[in-house]
């Protein structure tokens, strides 16, 4: 018996032993997930996909310091998974089977000033669904429907003085956005203009080491929340360079190498939110500047309304870019779906919870319907079923994903 099989059997045995949730510093989950697709876009895309995840997190206090570390192991039956290499900073173009999610320490410098350093996730945006303040943070789009934020190596200084708060972040190493495999169902390319059978060979171009720095100021006055931020450095979402000059013909078609490059981009933004009657109203605006010819400038705004209904929330977000992108917007991943209207509704029930999301891209009239229901078998076991239905014009970012229509089932055991 291989060590892998032994490990799997030990894991199954561990999961079957009933145990209370630990209130101490160790937590995590094991999840088995299956996807069934409506169609295949090519021979690489199977009808069914399996996804297994094992996640463990350790948290500890030492005096006033907070230490946190977490590791995730994944097994995916698709090309989305990368090879087993040591990649703690997530700098490769595919998901590492074993990755470090958190590895940070937070030290209180003074009662009102904290220093955090290591690898952690950031969340700056006020609006859910789309936020210009979050758009510069690295994301994993290898599954475009889950849109997972990636942690980054950074140093963060945060403080507070009366009604004012601030955060300064310096991320010295670029954690690049992770993109879906080009030409797969998750990132289909318009075949128009390309000879039939063209294959894109993504090169694992190393991202730059230099990252970015950002500063954020926040204040709360009664029911008003006001904020402003600025950043400079490397934009972690890559620009794709299709090297037709280096294309090679094969017996099945043309093979085109695709390189990645990373532009510099400066940005400033403001955010404002307040409670208006039954709603929480949020607005964000950002101006982004880049000398790169393919990236250019952008003026992005978002407006969201949030309202509670019982123990659920209805959220409506409208976001758009006032400036036309110099290249195809689908190659600028943080701007691909703009302008967009996002409506999300979630509720918790006695048996679990459910959510419905409708995203409508306003330029081509295509969109995405998502639904998910989670049933709590116990406090620790949860069964989730859901589906994603992209629809509409094939010229739009969602309509082009029609081969990615799917349903999924997941079983999770937490501890």
């Amino acid at each position, binding site marked *: 018996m291989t060590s892998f099989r032994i490990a799997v059997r030990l894991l199954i045995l561990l999961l079957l032993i009933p145990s209370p949730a*630990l209130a101490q510093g160790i937590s995590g989950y094991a999840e088995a997930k299956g996807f069934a697709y409506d169609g295949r876009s090519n021979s690489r895309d199977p009808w069914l996909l399996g996804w297994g995840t094992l996640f463990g997190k350790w948290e500890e206090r030492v005096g006033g310091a907070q230490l946190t570390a977490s590791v995730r192991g994944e097994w995916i039956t698709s090309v989305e998974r990368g090879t087993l290499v040591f990649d703690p900073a997530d700098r490769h173009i595919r998901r590492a089977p074993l990755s470090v999610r958190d590895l940070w320490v937070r030290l209180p410098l003074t009662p009102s000033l904290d220093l955090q350093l290591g690898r952690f996730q950031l*969340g700056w945006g006020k609006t859910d669904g789309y936020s210009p303040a979050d758009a510069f943070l690295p994301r994993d789009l290898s599954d475009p429907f889950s849109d997972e934020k990636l942690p980054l190596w950074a140093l963060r200084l945060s403080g507070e003085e009366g009604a004012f708060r601030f955060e300064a972040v310096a991320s010295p190493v670029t954690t690049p956005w992770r993109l879906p495999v080009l030409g797969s169902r998750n990132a289909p390319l318009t075949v128009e203009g390309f000879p039939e059978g063209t294959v894109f060979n993504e090169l694992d171009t190393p991202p730059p080491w230099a990252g970015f720095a950002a500063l954020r100021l926040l204040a709360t006055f009664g029911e008003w929340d006001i904020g402003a931020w600025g950043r400079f450095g490397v934009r972690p979402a890559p620009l794709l360079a299709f090297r037709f000059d280096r294309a090679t013909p094969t017996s099945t078609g043309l093979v085109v190498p695709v390189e990645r490059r990373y532009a510099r981009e400066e940005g400033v933004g403001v955010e404002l939110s307040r409670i208006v009657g039954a709603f929480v109203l949020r607005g964000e605006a950002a101006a982004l500047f880049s000398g790169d010819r393919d990236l250019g400038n952008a003026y992005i705004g978002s407006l969201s309304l949030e309202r509670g209904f019982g123990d659920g929330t209805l959220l409506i977000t409208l976001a758009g870019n006032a400036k036309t992108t110099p290249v195809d917007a689908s190659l600028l991943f943080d701007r691909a779906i703009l302008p967009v209207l996002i409506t999300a509704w979630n509720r918790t029930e006695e048996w679990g919870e459910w959510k419905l999301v409708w995203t409508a891209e306003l330029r081509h009239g295509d969109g995405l319907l998502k639904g998910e229901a989670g049933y709590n078998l116990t406090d620790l076991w949860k069964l989730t079923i859901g589906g994603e239905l992209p629809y509409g014009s094939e010229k739009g970012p969602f309509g082009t994903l029609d081969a990615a229509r799917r349903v999924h089932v997941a079983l999770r055991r937490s501890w």
Partner: protein
Amino acid sequence: MHENRSVRKILLLLALAALLTAMSACLAWGGADARALLKESENRHRTRTQQYAGDLTVVNKDGKVRKKGWKSFREGYAGDARNLIRFTDPPEVKGVGFLSLSRSAGQNPDQWLYLPSMKRERRIAAQDRDASFVGTDFNYEDMEEFDHEKYKVALQGEETLNGYPCYVIAATPLEKGGKSVYEKKILYLRKDILYLLREDLYRKGEKEPTKRLILSDIQKIDGHWVARKMEMSDLRKGSRTTVLLKEIAFDRPQAVGRFTLRNLNREGGD
């Protein structure tokens, strides 16, 4: 004839006496005394700070049980309370934080919920005060401490609960006290120690209580009376949430900046 007049006088005096007695009883059970009782209750039980670890169990109408663990820190009391709650388990809610900061009379407290999955806080609008607090039978308004100054109060009578004589006080939210989910609250105040034993909660337009909070297992800890068990029942849904307090401490100094948004957003923090 003369005798008749004397009898009439005596009857009149008796009637007047009865009327005065009734009026004085009415005055004794009127709003002023209810206010005095609630003020005295607040004076007796006010603490500078309070902190505890708690177990929270939600039992739905079918008997299905969900358990949660939390820690709570409070500074101030009633109208000037600041409260931070952090869930410790199960994993699906671990790290979820709740911050409530009282504001001046006429305004609902500022409330925020921190969700680890979003890595940021979410503000609770006053209209969301009826929303379930993290899947329990408590709503966001129930998480506030009772501040009698935001209510019109009247003593309704006396009743015995579990062998303890209680004052029964009706509390009606004042418009100037901020928006309330409830039309009325009926409070049962234990007479000997002026401690709340039960609260019946009437939603707007309801004639019967929709929820009931029962406080029990009352003990004296560090010189302060405290109910170690609180049970909120949703009488319409048939579910109930029980909170058991452990590791209770009063008047301990709280960390500087504990009741702040920055602290609420600290992952892995209290």
